């Protein structure tokens, strides 16, 4: 009955709209496209999708075969983000060719791609991943098992549900976005997942790596014997959840197990063979963080402003001048980080530094910027450094090249010219002690000249005969 009331529905709409405004939303847009084999399948993911909707995303559900499906409309992105759930079809049709998907990334669209060992991955997505230097097992499917850390509750025989602690960063200077705040004994369920092997590219970062003893095999052909030459990958080379961030900060997350996102595994409890207590999975929080990262809600940095000026107490102290001379100089940058719904001051991960390069052809200076508390606000942190410009004229760049795993790329280049010393900026000659004899010489010449002129004009011929020869020679 309520729904029939137009006024109320309008009210409800406004409320929702308002809620969408205040509630979290991605920094790059909220149009999300979900690709499923069958739209009905979304019920399996209702909690995950519900979480997304509550964070402000407008989800459109499409099947790959849909005629109306188009990632671009009139050359502009029609969606901001895409989720691929596992599909059984071999190809994804002409609307989702790998070229279109790469273009989607190039147009700053984000992709969350999920895999499952029970379905083969569509060709199009395999090609896309190949372009990103991510390799999937041959036959486009595989199953990751680990005989040491499987979930004893759901897969005591098959060992294909891995129970893993939330991932710690692969290096100690990477922000622990995905594990921060997790309970100590939290476990992730990774059911029936596919592992991928990553190439050496720096744009790739594994979010979750397989444990040392895990390996991937093809359940159809290698269920009995794992032939030595057919092993796809094992151990930490096997990446279960992979983050890719393009140069334009477009993101792609490859989630090895689509089932991770299902309601079932949001609610399930898991236990490891080491005899730990069964605990509720960390999947829901992990799924939230992974999707938030993929859709530019997490790890998004913003440069608010950049300022540089001469660090001298002089009359003219212009801000952001175009030209400098060999002198002291201060460079300041203001950064903010976005988390779900708000911009806050960005703080560097432990062991990491923000660096400023002052470069022409190659860097002359690469200096750490330090946090300037006096200028920082809760919304923005300000980093600053003062240094002496190199004694080399040329066209230089102030360059902050802060590219880190899990953060959007910051590459700020501010070009300034550093000029040579002007002719009147050198120390005067009387300041230089080495020049004193020459200045004395000048004085001597001037005095000698003036006196000579006087003598030449006003001297009478010497009366003494002896001196006659040497007296002023006249012309």
């Amino acid at each position, binding site marked *: 009955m309520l729904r029939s009331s137009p006024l109320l529905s309008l009210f409800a709409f406004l409320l929702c709209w308002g809620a969408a405004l205040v509630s979290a939303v991605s920094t790059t847009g909220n149009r999300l496209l979900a690709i499923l084999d069958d739209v009905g399948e979304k019920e399996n993911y209702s909690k995950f999708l519900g979480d997304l909707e509550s964070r402000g995303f407008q989800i459109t559900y499409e099947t790959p075969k849909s005629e109306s499906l188009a990632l671009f409309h009139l050359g502009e992105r029609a969606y901001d983000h895409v989720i691929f759930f596992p599909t059984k079809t071999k190809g994804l049709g002409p609307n989702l060719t790998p070229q279109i998907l790469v273009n989607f990334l190039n147009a700053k669209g984000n992709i969350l791609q999920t895999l499952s060992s029970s379905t083969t991955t569509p060709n199009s997505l395999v090609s896309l991943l190949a372009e990103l230097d991510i390799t999937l097992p041959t036959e486009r499917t595989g199953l990751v098992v680990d*005989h040491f850390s499987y979930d004893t509750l759901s897969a005591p025989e098959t060992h294909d549900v891995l129970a893993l602690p939330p991932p710690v960063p692969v290096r100690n200077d990477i922000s622990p976005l995905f594990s921060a705040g997790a309970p100590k004994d939290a476990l992730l369920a990774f059911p029936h997942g596919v592992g991928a092997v990553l190439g050496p590219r720096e744009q790739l970062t594994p979010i979750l790596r397989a444990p040392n003893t895990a390996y991937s095999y093809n359940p159809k052909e290698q269920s009995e014997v794992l032939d030595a030459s057919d092993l796809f990958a094992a151990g930490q080379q096997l990446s279960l959840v992979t983050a890719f961030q393009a140069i334009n900060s477009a993101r792609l997350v490859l989630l090895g197990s689509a089932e991770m996102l299902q309601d079932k595994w949001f609610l399930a409890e898991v236990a490891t063979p080491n*005899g730990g207590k069964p605990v509720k999975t960390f999947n829901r929080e992990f799924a939230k963080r992974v999707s938030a990262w993929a859709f530019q809600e997490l790890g998004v940095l913003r440069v608010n402003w950049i300022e540089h000026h001469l660090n001298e107490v002089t009359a003219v102290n212009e801000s952001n001048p175009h030209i400098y001379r060999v002198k002291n100089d201060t460079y300041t940058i203001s950064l903010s980080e976005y988390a779900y719904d708000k911009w806050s001051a960005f703080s560097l991960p432990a062991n990491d530094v923000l660096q400023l390069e002052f470069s022409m052809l190659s860097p002359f*200076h690469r200096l750490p910027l330090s946090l300037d508390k006096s200028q920082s606000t809760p919304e923005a942190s300000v980093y600053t450094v003062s240094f*002496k410009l*190199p004694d080399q004229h040329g066209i230089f760049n102030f360059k902050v090249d802060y590219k*880190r795993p899990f953060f959007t790329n910051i590459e700020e280049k501010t070009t300034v010219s550093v000029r040579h010393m002007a002719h009147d900026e050198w120390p005067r000659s009387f300041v230089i002690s080495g020049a004193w004899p020459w200045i004395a010489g000048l004085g001597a010449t001037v005095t000698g000249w003036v*006196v000579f002129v006087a*003598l030449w004009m006003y001297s009478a011929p010497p*009366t003494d005969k002896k001196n006659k020869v040497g007296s002023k020679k006249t012309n």
Partner: protein
Amino acid sequence: MRFTQSFALALLLLAGVAQAASWGFDDGTVSVVAKRAGETGSKERFNSKTPLTKPVSLGSTDTLKISLTAKDNGQEKRPHQAFVILKEKETGLEAPFPLTVKENGKAVASITHKDLPVQFLITDEPLEASIVLGSFGSSKALNAPVFDVKLQKDPNVPLPPYEKPVRYGKKEEIHHIFRADPKSPPKVISIIFALAVLATVPALFISWVLLGANLNHLSKAIGAAPVSHATFFGSILAMEGVFFLYYTSWNLFQALPVIGAVAVVTVLSGTKALGEVQSRRLAGER
């Protein structure tokens, strides 16, 4: 509720049973076979309890042969996973080498330099080899370090090229090295030389005076052409003054007009003044 509890209990029980069964192996041997005909290198036996103390050394043309018999709870059986995992201790990089396992649990693997990843080939550290045996079901899997492998490199063969991959992260700091400022000699020396230069002035004057220089004609000259003599000498002094001001404060465009003006005065008054000097010379007074 009760049902689930009892179910969980049953599972725990099951797990407890699984704990009992576990994978292991016997007859673990590792041998290094040289390529040269028939020459067998060292052969050592190992077990899962205590790793070998001495590293096995593997030459660049040798083959490392590992064989063992896998057992599940004492029974010879083929596990699904039978790996030798080599680990580079410094970086923690690992590479698995599956053993070829027969039905009866007999497993062999051979490893040569060619099979190793490049990161292992360039390191000097010994590699840690462990045996991993595991399979589906409840038997507990085994992961036991067994021995170390030391790679003997052929000094004649260059190390394979390897460049550390680019990773986003902080970089080395760089500080520009400034050119040294130009140096002046010690001030004392400058002062001495400056004084020496200045000393030439009195020396010159004295020698002039000794040669008979005087200003006896001054009154005569002034008397003959007072204005031109005064302005001429004044303009010469003024010119020096302009130069001094140019040196200290003026710029070119301030100095040039003044120089022009003074020069005109010098020329005009100079013709008269010097004419007077000439007249004295013609009169034989110089």
